[in-house]
């Protein structure tokens, strides 16, 4: 099966300068990230702040150009195509952002927000656009009679439904969703996650679902990639990754997540050591070694490559079984 999206060796470094314009270092935001997403598949991308997950999602839609590496969508490298071809490709990939308060123009009516991609991509007839907006609003669980309201008239969950409707307008093959439910209350979060699952079943589209929330990632993803300081440290099928996390960082994340189980309050927990280092000067060797319970000399010197682990995932660790 050929992949819908193939990301190969994706790297993005940002030069950092001081106020005089002199270079003071390089932020290694993303280094050598590779993954594939098949048609109808969801890849979950998880990690903590600064791990590079948002930079990856922006490179997939070409909002950020990579320093090295390729983003191949349906066989075409999106960074090597012409402007007009890129406009065509943009119809195939759409994005949903985290903050439904910041990502929608507060002065536009819901109808105009949802219809904008249609207009940009040449649907000239107003009645056609309106018909499509009605269809989309109903699809995402909004009443079409609310279409002339501005975002202020909608709740957070409803605004995220508007953002999803806008993303669906052009029938994309892939939706990149960067923390789409993180700003929502838990009861509303469940509604939006369910909506995204339903839409996927119905339309067969793929998701790159970026989140810091293990519970949501586990629920929605077929496969999961765990990022730490700009690199994928473990990737595999959701069931394998959660049943047999191989990388010590994956295990740290799972241990650290609070569980809705009061018995844990009194039990002694494994608390993660240390803090995430700066991507400006990432540690040598394996970037996780200063916090890792398994670290030895080889971890301080050599970068581990991704390799198959016993639990069925691929992990970048010298010591994982």
């Amino acid at each position, binding site marked *: 099966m050929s992949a819908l999206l193939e990301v190969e060796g994706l790297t993005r470094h940002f030069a950092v300068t001081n106020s005089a314009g002199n270079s003071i270092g390089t932020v290694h935001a993303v280094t050598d990230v590779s993954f594939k997403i098949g048609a109808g598949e969801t890849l979950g991308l998880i990690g903590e702040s600064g791990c590079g997950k948002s930079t990856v999602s922006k490179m997939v839609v070409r909002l950020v150009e990579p320093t090295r590496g390729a983003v191949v969508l349906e066989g075409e490298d999106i960074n090597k195509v012409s402007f007009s071809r890129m406009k065509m490709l943009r119809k195939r990939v759409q994005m949903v952002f985290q903050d439904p308060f910041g990502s929608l123009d507060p002065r536009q009516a819901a109808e105009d927000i949802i219809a904008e991609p249609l207009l940009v991509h040449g649907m000239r007839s107003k009645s056609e656009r309106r018909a499509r907006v009605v269809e989309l609003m109903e699809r995402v669980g909004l009443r079409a009679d609310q279409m002339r309201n501005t975002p202020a008239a909608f709740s957070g969950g409803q605004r995220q439904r508007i953002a999803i409707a806008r993303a669906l307008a052009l029938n994309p093959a892939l939706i990149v969703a960067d923390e789409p439910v993180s700003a929502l209350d838990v009861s509303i979060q469940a509604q939006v996650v369910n909506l995204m699952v339903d839409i996927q079943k119905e339309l067969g589209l793929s998701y790159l679902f970026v989140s810091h929330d293990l519970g949501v990632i586990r629920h929605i993803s077929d496969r999961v990639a765990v990022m730490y300081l700009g690199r994928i440290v473990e990737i595999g099928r959701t069931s394998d990754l959660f049943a047999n996390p191989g990388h010590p960082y994956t295990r740290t994340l799972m241990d650290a997540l609070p569980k809705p189980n*009061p018995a844990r309050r009194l039990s002694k927990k494994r608390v993660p050591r240390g803090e995430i280092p700066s991507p400006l000067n990432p540690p040598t060797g394996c970037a996780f070694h200063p916090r890792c319970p398994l670290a030895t000399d080889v971890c301080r010197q050599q970068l581990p490559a991704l390799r198959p682990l016993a639990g069925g995932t691929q992990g970048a660790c010298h010591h994982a079984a």
Partner: protein
Amino acid sequence: MSNVLAVEGLTVNLTTQDRSFDVLSDISLTVAQGEILALVGESGSGKSMTALSIMGLLPDPVAAVTSGAIYFDGIDLARADETTMRKLRGNRIGLIFQEPMTSLNPTMRVGPQVAEVLELHKGLKAHEARARVEGIFALVRIPDPKSRYDNYPHQMSGGMRQRVMIAIALACDPDLLIADEPTTALDVTTQSQILDTLRDLQAELGKATILITHDLAVVAETANRVAVMYAGRIVEQTSTEQLFATPRHPYTVGLLHAIPRDEAMPGEGRGRLVEIPGSVPALWNLPKGCAFAPRCSRATQQCQDSRPSLVDIQPGHQVACWHPVEAEI
């Protein structure tokens, strides 16, 4: 154990240009020494308003206590004047806010920001305060307190800044601690470290604590007792163990089911999360009966007509519902 704080029938009204409505209605709760009470609810449920009322920080004159009382050490905070409140805030009532970056002064070293509290409330000289602050930094597990004292906030990680906030709250050895979403802005590994420190401090110092959070998992791992809030009222209140084992209010049950959790996962995802339909009603446009009725699958005509009050359903377990979910056998 004696109650450090007792809130009785607290009602707070908010008046804007367009409308006037209650943001808190008939809130009653107590916090005993050594106890962590969690106030849990979604946005707009009134949990932060409750904290602001206790601290006397309601936006004046927009919001005002219209009835009820807040007893702390024999004083009714709802009626205390600003001079009295100033002596209590940061001194006998410590506060931890959500956002350590915006709550700290970015142009001032962190040590003096803690020392300031001691100089103001305890009359310490700067050099005396410094030694005390270094001790408090050690207490809240800030490594190398002596050199950290001279850091600016931007030189610290989010977790360390939150520890400085905790140090400010604990500086004067308060009787009551109010923590408003103390780990919400933090990464999960940092959150785990801060929660661990809060638990340790609880065991060492035994402060009466109010923990405000939207995250039931944080409640489970931290609090002794829980009050679930919805649309400005407490709808269920009991021990943490009881709440998670046998939740009785349909809203609590819905919240617990909406969390994507390990045990309920069918492996490959794709299952449906249990959702609560609709959204939280506007406080100025509440239904006549139970505020949750429009979203509740158990609602009957009775729920639409009259509002259930918070009653003991069994000892130590209060629920405001006409048709509580049956306790599992």
